């Protein structure tokens, strides 16, 4: 069932630059379990899109299958959505992006959807640096099929039925960095102040932007002994930096580093302002990011925040040199060589 949200809204809700209130960015009423981390992430997406002044119809939201993959129905109802098949959202997003480079592509997946059935596509979409946001709502289990362990469940973590996971977990964030993803962040569904600027920065990134969001499953994996429960995550979270997304046109003149603060200039003139909490870590250096993630894991910490970014990476379109005009706007005139050319082709085949 999908419930339609009641239409009545407070008349004095603030409007963004496009004149839209935040409600314009909402979707259908969620049917997920009350308290599910995924709903908080949806709310973060709504907030980020509103604050970023996104035209909803200029964004396409795509997902695979799972509780997490249902969420695109619960945000941005004025955007086209595509709930594809289990683990294959990256390929659909790739095709869609090739067809029209002018939209923002917003992908949502789960840990089962990305780290198991969809691992192949996850890895390859990173390789291609497809210009998209890719959020994994990571709860360490298969919510929709009732709580089986997923490949991101930590070794030794206990699920609701009391089973202890025997297998090494797959850490999607370090994998993404290792594979050369050009924007990698990690966050927690319970930390909206951190999540919203990360989503904004991800939408602004002109390449593959990955955010692994720990998102507890209250129904199947929020028990004592689970390393993906609200309590466990709250206790073990360690942030790289607090982060602000500073839009263009702000008064900032130049890149500077002042104390623990670092300004990262983005490709379009916007800035990311990071109040660093860890001294050794440099978000523009892949090795240092890898180290930071590994060190945190050694200490049983979950490192959140922006982990790594390459602000000037060239996306897939740039690599394969597709024309600036979206391919889906080309017509017979540009695409069909016509009968005269065909005459020559025929002649060459005689």
């Amino acid at each position: 069932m999908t419930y339609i949200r009641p239409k009545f809204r407070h008349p004095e809700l603030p409007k963004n630059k496009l004149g839209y209130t935040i409600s314009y960015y909402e979707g259908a009423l969620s049917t997920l379990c009350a308290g599910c981390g995924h709903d908080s992430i949806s709310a973060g997406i709504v907030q980020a899109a509103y604050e970023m002044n996104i035209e909803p119809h200029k964004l396409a939201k795509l997902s695979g299958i799972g509780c997490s993959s249902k969420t695109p129905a619960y945000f941005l109802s004025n955007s086209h959505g595509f709930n594809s098949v289990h683990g294959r959202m990256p390929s659909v997003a790739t095709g869609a992006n090739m067809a029209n480079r002018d939209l923002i592509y917003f992908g949502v997946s789960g840990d089962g959807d990305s780290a198991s059935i969809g691992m192949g596509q996850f890895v390859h979409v990173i390789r291609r640096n497809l210009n998209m946001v890719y959020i994994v709502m990571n709860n360490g289990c298969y919510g929709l099929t009732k709580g089986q362990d997923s490949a991101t469940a930590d070794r030794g973590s206990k699920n609701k039925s009391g089973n202890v996971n025997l297998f090494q977990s797959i850490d999607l964030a370090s994998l993404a960095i290792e594979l050369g993803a050009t924007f990698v962040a990690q966050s927690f569904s319970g930390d909206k102040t951190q999540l919203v600027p990360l989503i904004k920065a991800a939408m602004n990134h002109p390449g593959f932007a990955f955010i692994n969001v720990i998102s507890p499953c209250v129904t199947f994996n929020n028990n004592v002994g689970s390393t993906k429960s609200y309590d466990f995550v709250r206790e073990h979270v360690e942030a790289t930096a607090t982060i602000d997304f500073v839009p263009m046109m702000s008064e900032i003149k130049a890149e500077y580093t002042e104390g623990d603060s670092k300004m990262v200039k983005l490709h379009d003139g916007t800035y990311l302002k990071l109040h660093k909490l860890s001294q050794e870590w440099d978000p523009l250096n892949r090795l240092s990011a890898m180290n930071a993630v590994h060190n945190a894991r050694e200490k049983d910490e979950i490192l959140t925040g922006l982990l790594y970014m390459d602000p000037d990476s060239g996306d897939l379109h740039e690599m394969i040199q597709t024309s600036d005009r979206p391919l889906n706007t080309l017509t017979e005139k540009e695409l069909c060589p016509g009968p005269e050319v065909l005459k020559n082709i025929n002649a060459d085949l005689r």
Partner: protein
Amino acid sequence: MSLKENRINDFVVRFANVNGTGSASANYLFCKAIFRMGIPVTPKNIFPSNIQGLPTWYEVRISEKGYLGRREGIDLMVAVNPQSMTADVASVKSGGYFLYDSSKKLQAEYMREDVNYIGIPLMEMCNEAFTDARQRQLFKNIIYVGALAALLNIDFSVFESLLGEQFKGKEKLIAPNIKALQMGVDYVHQNFKYPLNFYVEKRDLIGDKIMIDGNSACGLGAIYAGATVAAWYPITPSTSVVEAFMGYADEYRIDPVTGKRNVAIIQAEDELAAIGMVIGANWNGARSFTATSGPGLSLMNEFLGLAYFAEIPTVLIDVQRSGPSTGMPTRTQQSDVLEAAYASHGDTKHVLLFPSTPKECFEMTSDAFDLAEELQTPVMLMTDLDLGMNDHVSAPFEWNVNKEYKRGKVLSATALDKIEKFGRYLDVDGDGITYRTYPGTHPSKGSFFTRGTSRDEYAVYTESSDAYKRNMDRLMKKWETAKDYVNAPQLYQEKNHSKICLIFFGTSQFSSEEAMDILRSQNIQTDALRLKAFPFNRDVEDFINAHEQIFVIEQNRDAQMRSLIMIELGINADKLFSVLNYDGMPITADQITRQITSHLNLPNN
């Protein structure tokens, strides 16, 4: 051997080579020369799933009557591969010829009483005339082509012009090639009686026809049809479809001003991703396709179900090969028919097109895009290895200046403004085909959620049995509509004149037509129909109902098209007889006639 009467323009030559030795271009030169002499010719590559060192064959049938199917019985074997010599000697027709490299003496075990031997010391001659090792290997092939020119009366000037075209810009290479050819000619002139009792004679039977492989024609068709996104995963025999598309794109899809490309071609990580990309691109309003073969089609099943149910145009070119599993990956078959027709779980049916010539590969690729967008569903072009990878004599490609792409029911922003409420799956026109919108069209109207789960007319998720059933029934209505959209079959007669008929499709066409002639010469009249599409157009049903004994000719073991006809048209099994070939080689007219006559109660007929 006594000289029988001469046969002109009617024989089969087979070349036995080792792959990777440069024989392909020499053999092609031979075939193209005959084509240039105005004589119908049909070459078949028989090659292993291997890159270097294993036996390959190239079989050329020359047929004044224009029979382009394969024919059994080899009149002349050019055997330059010691590995396959035993089989090669055995495959020559009694009274036929065996040309071999006599640099080494032919062993006694290869001697047959009823075969004529033509020994030419190819290696010796080459070693004497050329110093470079690679040249020695390559020109061995050219020498035997020269020998064939003399033995079969091929016009030498044709070779000169062909080499001139081939080495345009590299003129230095022409002279040594001519020299090698001439060496072959001279050797025959000095040592053998020539021409043989079968040979070629110039004709004017080719007209404006062209010679090309089906895969290149598909690639070109996709260019003409305006495909902008191609996603694929390499697999024989479909690889050259995308390679051709790439080649043509390099020529015709570079923006003259910016130098950028009006095309995106993605080599995907597997076939699942390839079809996913195609679906994503089509969903977003670009024409997009993939090309694959059996194993890839199997992997694409889940996504094809999504495209069917969510109603997303999808174009898939299936170049069929011998299955099941990896089967005989470099041999032909028409054995994906049932899998394609009902691909994916649940109730699904897919539109299939069956080209049988390069011209049809070109046209039907373009049709596939129109149909996929008009019907908002997957359309699969069912070609095969024989058509895709072998050169075929074909009518030339045609493209009407006024031809417009049929993009189907897509709403623009202005159209959306005029509607009260947009329903993605609302059957406004009553033909089962609903209206769609591309993402990014309108700020507040026309957005919808695409999904493989059940939904109502407004694309809202629902588990209501009624809504689900309404949707499934509408999809069935759309299927009925499709019958009027797809290509009509080819009927071989204006009025039926027999109780017996033949039904065939794709590459079985050539041998079936030849078989009809053979049967006619035995006083057996048959009507015939060539299928071009599934769902079966209404003409197919009428045709079948008008006959008592129906022979369905196809290249697979399980009589898949016959099953499809039974399932879809409810035809009684007793009426439908199977004519099959599934050994991986293209079907022959002899196989067809033999199987048909075995079913006919001849004296009473």
